[in-house]
């Protein structure tokens, strides 16, 4: 299956199409709106389901097998912002806080992009490590912490003590809802194992793909509202939102293969590196680095990188993984 055909197949599946419907409705200023609370409720469902299933698989795989990939994933999350910050600051001429914030968003991860990737792999018949959501879980926080650290150091605000700001950021990053839910559900899945998964399968597995499609409708509505904000970021931000995922994704694929992940697993790690956070990072950065303009990072993450990844990006990272893992 070549890349184009793979992109086409991916595009003609419910999740990306519902995202497109949401974007179109928002752009046409339809009165299709999110009932308040639904977005938050679906987020909780998705994170709990992703975590729980991953935990049950983690139990099956055994903790011993996963340390390597998990450590590599956490390291990638911490290091990626260090690479993208100078690009944003000096090439893109963003203010220090903005550059740090964007770098943190792109170092951190998007659980929904990850999930679309697993569906894509499943429907393409590619195997992957079932515990891969453990990689997702460890990649949220490090980038946020590093981003805050950079932002604070660069801003060099004399008034506040760095350590206080960082401990606040650590709180946000580690006790934010997505980290707590993902890590908590992962632990629960691990403790319950396959037997527990069987019990709650009818809720956490059977309807999952459909819930994801509905969530993407909502995400499309949110993203559509952000399209106008892109102008404030200028052409550089747009380019960054398209190029950064490709570079970070390729790096993720390479590292994944190097630490022994399967082809599918490496494609997933690539997707994680390529994806940008729009739940954990925005909330944490808003409180720990409020000088940063939240509009820029969110518009880039949601209105550029997310649609890029769920349409073209994911098939691309898989193609890279296939090519590089060929003997």
């Amino acid at each position: 299956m070549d890349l184009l055909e793979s992109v086409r197949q991916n595009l003609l599946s419910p999740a990306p199409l519902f995202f497109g419907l949401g974007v179109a409705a928002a752009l046409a200023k339809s009165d299709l709106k999110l009932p308040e609370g639904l977005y938050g409720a679906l987020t909780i469902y998705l994170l709990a389901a992703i975590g729980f299933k991953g935990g049950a698989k983690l139990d099956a795989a055994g903790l011993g097998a996963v340390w390597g990939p998990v450590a590599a994933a956490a390291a990638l999350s911490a290091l990626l912002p260090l690479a993208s910050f100078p690009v944003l600051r000096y090439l893109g001429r963003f203010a220090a806080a903005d550059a740090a914030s964007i770098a943190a968003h792109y170092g951190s991860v998007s659980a929904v992009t990850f999930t679309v990737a697993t569906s894509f792999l499943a429907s393409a018949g590619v195997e992957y490590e079932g515990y891969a959501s453990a990689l997702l879980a460890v990649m949220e926080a490090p980038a946020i912490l590093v981003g805050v650290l950079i932002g604070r150091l660069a801003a060099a605000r004399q008034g506040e003590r760095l350590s206080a700001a960082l401990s606040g950021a650590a709180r946000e990053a580690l006790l934010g809802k997505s980290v707590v839910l993902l890590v908590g559900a992962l632990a629960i899945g691990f403790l319950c194992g396959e037997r527990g998964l069987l019990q709650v399968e009818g809720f956490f597995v059977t309807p999952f793909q459909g819930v994801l499609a509905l969530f993407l409708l909502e995400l499309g509505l949110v993203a559509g509202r952000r399209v106008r904000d892109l102008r404030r970021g200028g052409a550089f931000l747009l380019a960054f939102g398209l190029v950064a995922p490709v570079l970070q994704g390729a790096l993720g694929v390479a590292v994944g293969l190097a630490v022994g992940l399967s082809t599918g697993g490496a494609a997933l790690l690539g997707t994680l590196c390529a994806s940008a956070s729009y739940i954990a990072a925005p909330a944490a950065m808003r409180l720990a680095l409020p000088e940063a303009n939240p509009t820029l990072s969110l518009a880039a993450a949601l209105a550029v990188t997310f649609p890029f990844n769920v349409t073209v990006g994911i098939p691309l990272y898989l193609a890279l993984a296939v090519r590089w893992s060929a003997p």
Partner: protein
Amino acid sequence: MRLVTIVCEALARDLVLRLARDCGAHGATVSPASGVGATGERPADIEEAANVRVELVVPPEIAARIAERVERELFPRFACILWETDVRVLRQAKF
């Protein structure tokens, strides 16, 4: 008594409440809000964009302290406005 109303980004909710408590407010009423202003539209359907509307019933000197700190600490960092007015309350001593 003064009624101080602060409309601010929902993500800063706890900061606002802490500031009010530190200034001496004995309580607060918080309601959800969306809005539109200089920073664009703030729809209430996702928490990242929503506003909160915080009402504080306080004696005038505490109102002044709150206004002063909101101006210094919140205005430069968050989409936020504040207005205040005189109100008559029951149980004066409570506030």
